[in-house]
């Protein structure tokens, strides 16, 4: 996949035999063993690997859960409880799967923020970034449909609200909603098609992941300095260096994952989802899962009409726009410098963006009234302002700090000035 020169040399007869017919071992060797990675990657770069493992974990637990699940409005809720009570280790499978979704999103958000911080989306990695945004979209669709399957109150009403967004579009809105629902309201056809698609989409994600990794291996990884690899001393071999570092990051992540699964399995869920769906009883507050809350807050922030666009359509366009805008990020950023490490102003606005995203998440869980709406509107304005105004403008007016000549120079300068033991204050932004 790396496209470069292959250093794989089959040693045994059987390896030579396979290599002449299907050079799969060569591909694996070149992509995951000899593949050169920058020597200065920190633990923020471990999340790609973590995400791959989370996808596998979700598919494995999901396939087994599907063996015990019944996609029928009369049976779904009780079949999930059957898994929780009577299936061997069923409680563990289900808690792994439901908390796994949360962990998947936690990891993907860190992964995206890392990309924004280090400018990973810039040329020649635009397609790599766009494929990542496609994966995010697929993940969101998968998670949303998966949340409907237990057929609890939040499942049902969440599905009702979210499919209702589409009715905001003139003319095509209603037919789209009816196609999604398989009828005029959330019911058995909805549950059946959501189950089918929830099973299908993860494999589509896996397919796009292959493209994502392929694109990564063509352009090579970025690194905290944002400087391209120039010589062999800038890199180390993927195995054992990156493998063992990623493995350590992964195990730490698994500790967090296990902590939630075994000690706080319902922390991230909503109590109402332990009540069977009832189309006649609307919950007091309909709230999506935590990972959708920032987008939900932006949807509800639009409480006013903009010309011919009413507030409902405006909200829906804002919500879809908040993801869609990610697609053009590579062209919105005008800075010649990739990494925020050398961009003092961008760094400030980036962290404000993170704080703003967290605030929007909290606001999404509040009722849409009074001050909350006002805060949401400010938050939404900053979210879009960051991409549309700050990114293009900063690149033109900001004076970046002096860049080192190479990754090796940056690494050596840091270890020299910091001295041993590993200087705490010296250039911490490039430290692992």
């Amino acid at each position, binding site marked *: 996949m790396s496209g470069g020169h292959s250093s794989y040399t089959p040693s045994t007869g059987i390896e030579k035999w396979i290599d002449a017919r299907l050079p799969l071992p060569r591909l694996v060797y070149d992509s995951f063993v000899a593949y050169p990675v920058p020597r200065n990657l920190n633990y923020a770069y471990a999340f790609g690997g973590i995400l791959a493992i989370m996808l596998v974990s979700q598919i494995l637990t999901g396939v087994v859960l599907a063996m015990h699940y019944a996609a029928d409005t009369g049976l779904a809720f009780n079949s999930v409880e059957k898994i*929780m*009570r009577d299936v061997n280790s069923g409680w563990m499978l289900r808690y792994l799967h439901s908390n796994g979704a949360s962990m998947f999103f936690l990891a993907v958000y860190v992964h995206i923020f890392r990309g924004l911080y280090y400018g990973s989306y810039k040329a020649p990695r635009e397609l790599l970034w766009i494929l990542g945004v496609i994966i995010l979209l697929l993940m969101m669709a998968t998670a949303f449909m998966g949340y409907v399957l237990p057929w609890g109150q939040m499942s049902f009403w969440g599905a009702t609200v979210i499919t209702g967004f589409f009715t905001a579009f003139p003319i095509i809105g209603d037919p789209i909603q009816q196609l999604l629902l398989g009828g005029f309201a959330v019911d058995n056809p909805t549950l059946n098609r959501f189950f089918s698609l929830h099973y299908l989409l993860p494999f589509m994600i896996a397919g796009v992941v292959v493209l994502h990794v392929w694109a990564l291996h063509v352009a090579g990884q970025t690194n905290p300095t944002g400087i391209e690899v120039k010589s062999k001393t800038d890199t180390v071999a993927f195995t054992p260096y990156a493998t063992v570092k990623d493995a350590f990051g992964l195990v730490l992540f698994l500790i967090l994952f296990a902590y939630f699964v075994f000690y*706080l399995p319902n922390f991230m869920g909503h109590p109402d989802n*332990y009540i069977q769906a009832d189309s006649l009883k609307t919950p007091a507050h309909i709230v999506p899962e935590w990972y959708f809350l920032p987008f939900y807050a932006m949807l509800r922030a639009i409480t006013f009409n903009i010309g011919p666009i009413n507030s409902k359509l405006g909200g829906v366009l804002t919500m879809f726009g908040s993801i869609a805008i990610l697609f053009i990020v590579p062209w919105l950023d005008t800075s010649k410098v990739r990494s925020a490490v050398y961009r003092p102003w961008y760094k400030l606005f980036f*962290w404000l963006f993170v*704080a703003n995203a967290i605030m929007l998440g909290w606001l999404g869980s509040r009722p849409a009234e009074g001050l909350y709406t006002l805060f949401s509107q400010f938050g939404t304005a900053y979210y879009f302002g960051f991409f549309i105004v700050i990114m293009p403008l900063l690149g033109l007016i900001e004076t970046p700090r002096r860049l080192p000549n190479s990754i090796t120079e940056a690494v050596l300068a840091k270890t020299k000035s910091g001295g041993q033991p590993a200087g705490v204050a010296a250039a911490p932004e490039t430290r692992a």
Partner: protein
Amino acid sequence: MKKILLGLAAAGLGTMLAFGTANAAEEAHNAAEPTHFPIKEPAEVNWSFAGPFGHYDKQQLQRGLKIYKEVCSACHSMHLVAFRSLEELGYTEAQVKAFAAEYEVQDGPNAEGEMFTRKALPSDYFPSPFPNAQAAAAANNGAAPPDFSLIAKARAVERGFPRFVFDIATQYQEGGPDYIHALLTGFGETPPEGMQIPEGTHYNPYFISAKSLAMAPPLQDGQVTYDDGSPQTLSQYSQDISAFLMWAAEPHLEERKKTGFRVMVFLVLFAGLVYVAKRRIWADVEH
């Protein structure tokens, strides 16, 4: 990475300020006509099943079962709990069989095509007091009493910021039983001056969705006889039934926490080994 963490901390502080302002705005509401429920927050009870080594107190679950059987089951179903699972409360197979036989369930059709009733078996589930939701509602002023199988996980008072963050460290997952306990002990308080209580409902400041509820105070001191010498008080009853309902909702809680401990020990040791390996491999590479 350190910079990222520092930045995150700063980001957190900034948002906390914003949250504080918004929270203060939410607090201001009228005592006589509250708009946010419950009016009072439930107290945190010291449950045996809380924390990383939590386990059910079998004596307590048995007392809770007695309360469910003698009081609650008159109105509340528990249709996801099978008699066979009562063995987890410390009963023998024979005791469970005898317990199940005290209930009648409908079965059939038989060879003649007729439905018939028979004594319940351990493989049966707790029969419901009403034939359907409509009958339950009709007998209870239009509000069907909720099923008890999952109630301890289906009710929880929102913890609010920043407490829900601290709950991660303290492993607080007992919002359900705390709520049930608070509700059962929360009847009998005098409503604030000027509050209108709808007829046929009972004021309870701990009720999660209104100022009063249709259920009358179900438990009083001395109502259920305990044979293990535990105090026969409302406070004790409320704790016992809450613990029992937690078990009903999460029967594998002990197994989960035990497995969790093994998993954590393994992962922490494994992380240590991987870290040592990482240090050795990277020892001669400046990075």
